[in-house]
């Protein structure tokens, strides 16, 4: 599978390195995207003169969502113009070969351009799939956030594999229990039963056009959308790891979106999608910049205003995993929870303490929470499985 026919594998390797760089930061960039990027570089007129334009084209190919879109300019600059970005990127040991986007396009044209674009693309395909430089490129870019203390020393090393399996089955059981709700259009209909004309007529063809067995439209029920907010502040240090484990189980079982917060809020769903021992470290890296303390109300505000703005509806289910100690003004927590409720979402509060949290903020916010559930161990979760619907 080597590509000896390619005289200069350099541009493709650089591109593969860029793809690896993007993947490292949570982008979904496969061979298809890389191929499209090569195509774009070959076809876009003026790509040589205006690398920025090529950057825009690649942005459209590599980004698959608003989150990717916002992170792109930084990642692009970090890879192609590392000398310009300040801070975080650190080169250790080996110096990196200069990356120049113009050069890359030039070389791409030289090596692939003349043979027509289509054969060029297939050649690129094989070269990309086993690019030897990829691993190198991966190791080269270890810049980014530092991994700080906080949580990872309190590991769940004593967990046995069967515990993990148990957690997963529990999560699946709870996810299956989450009540499926009727979609809106069926609530409005008094009978909830309507003739499915298309099916009826289709069936009637068998009986010569006489609708003997009418078909009815079935009301649809859908699972709620699950949002899990995990408090990772100091006061929750001992529990955060368990909570993240549990949250991960629900990402797998119910496609939940998971956020962590202490003074600010950040989404960690992409980090939790793959099972690895390093989940905790990845989350630490995300939250490393946060200051100490807990600002639940501010985080909730950010949650319903920015992150989940469009998805918080009648079918949303919000789980907050926190002890309820809030550094914001006590009245705000209630207000923010009311705002979340106002969108139609249902709120369940999981607390590690034996009793329901009774901080000033929580007392005020209590009416907004549908349910309080204790959660300090796996056993609690299995008990909770019967409560949740």
């Amino acid at each position, binding site marked *: 599978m080597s590509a000896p026919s390619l005289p200069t594998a350099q541009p493709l390797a650089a591109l593969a390195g860029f793809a690896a760089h993007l993947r490292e930061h949570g982008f*979904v960039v*496969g061979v*298809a*995207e890389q191929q*499209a990027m090569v*195509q*774009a570089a070959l*076809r*876009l*007129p*003026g790509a040589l003169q205006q690398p920025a*334009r090529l950057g*825009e*084209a690649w*942005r*459209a*190919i590599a*980004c*698959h*969502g*608003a989150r*990717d*879109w*916002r992170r792109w300019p930084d990642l692009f600059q970090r890879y192609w113009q590392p000398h310009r970005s300040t801070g975080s990127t650190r080169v250790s040991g080996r110096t990196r070969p200069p990356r120049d986007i113009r050069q890359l396009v030039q070389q791409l044209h030289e090596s692939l351009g003349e043979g027509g674009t289509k054969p060029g693309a297939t050649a690129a395909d094989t070269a990309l799939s086993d690019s030897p430089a990829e691993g190198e490129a991966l190791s080269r870019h270890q810049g980014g956030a530092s991994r700080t203390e906080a949580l990872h020393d309190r590991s769940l090393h004593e967990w046995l594999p069967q515990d993990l399996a148990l957690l997963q089955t529990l999560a699946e059981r709870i996810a299956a229990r989450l009540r499926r709700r009727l*979609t*809106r*259009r069926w609530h409005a209909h008094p009978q909830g039963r309507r003739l499915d*004309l*298309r099916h009826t*007529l*289709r069936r009637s*063809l068998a009986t*010569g*056009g006489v609708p003997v067995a009418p078909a009815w439209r079935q009301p*649809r029920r859908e699972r709620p959308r699950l949002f899990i907010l995990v408090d990772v502040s100091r006061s929750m240090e001992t529990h955060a790891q368990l909570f993240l484990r549990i949250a991960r189980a629900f990402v797998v079982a119910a496609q939940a*979106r998971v956020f962590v917060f202490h*003074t600010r809020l950040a989404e960690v769903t992409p980090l939790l999608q793959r099972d690895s021992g390093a989940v905790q470290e990845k989350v630490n890296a995300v939250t490393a910049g946060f*200051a*100490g*303390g807990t*600002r639940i109300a*501010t985080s909730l*505000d950010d949650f319903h205003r920015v992150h989940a*703005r*469009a*998805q918080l*509806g009648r079918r949303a289910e919000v789980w907050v995993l926190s002890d309820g100690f809030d*550094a*914001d003004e006590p009245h705000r927590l209630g207000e923010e929870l009311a705002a979340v409720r106002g969108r139609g979402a249902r709120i369940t509060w999981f607390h590690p303490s034996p009793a329901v949290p009774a901080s000033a903020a929580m007392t005020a916010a209590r009416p907004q929470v549908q349910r309080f559930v204790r959660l300090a161990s796996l056993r609690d979760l299995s008990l909770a499985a019967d409560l949740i619907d």
Partner: protein
Amino acid sequence: MTTEASPQALRESLHRVGYIADEALATTLWLAGSLQRPLLVEGDAGVGKTALAQALARAEGRRLVRLQCFEGLDLSQAAYEWNYGRQLLAIRRAETGQGGGAASDDTALFSREFLLQRPLLQAILSDEPCVLLIDEIDRADEAFEAFLLEVLADWQITVPELGTLRARHVPRAVLTSNGTRELSDALRRRCLYHWLDYPTLAREIAIVRATLPDAEGALVKQAVAFVQRLRREDLGKTPGVAESLDFVRALHQLGHQRLPDEPAALAHVLACLLKTREDRFQFGPERLLQVLEGRKAGGDGVAVKHATPLP
């Protein structure tokens, strides 16, 4: 019916039909045409996602085929449906011996003649290249999204009774989404992606000028600047481009040469911009005056909220 040769040319022809695109958008749009990939446009309501597809159709002289998605949209509304009424008629006619016996066998009953074309099939079977707009794809169900994969990847639709129908000309597909639901990765990966943001001041002025050439220059500038300041406020529903167009149009028709200074004159025109009760309530005369004069909010504004974090 031409596909533009370069992003710049595409940008200019979009400009000619009154859509002011920035360079990144034009590049993406051009690339989508060049690679024959659908383009997924996301952004807040009212930033001109749908207008983009309409402008593209006009700029390239193509027909626009529009599919508006909603909850419960199914194949019979989106792709095709058999014309049961006509089929039954044909059967009856065959029974009574009129109209030749053509309809008596299956193949004749399930021919193109009895097929009702819905937007997706129209776009696929169109004799001339067209622009296919799939609007608010996030409102459709996941099942429908999965069906779209075949259409968008291979440009074909399979009708069990007829076989696979392939596109004669690959349509330029534009999908829009408001993010009410997370789209599947499979769909996202088949599309190019563009996040359409609120336009910059200069671009928005150009947009308003292009749409309302009669309005006075001073009025357009001041009104757009006002809307841009308003967008920075903490609003329940941020006004989009369509709203600022309405706003300038209303001021223009009321005979204003420039943006009125006193809040009282603006109060009723604000209905074009502020669309929720809370927003109207929040923008009383004093608050409005502050925004008019470009002052930052005092008291409990957003800036204050995120100031010094408590320990």
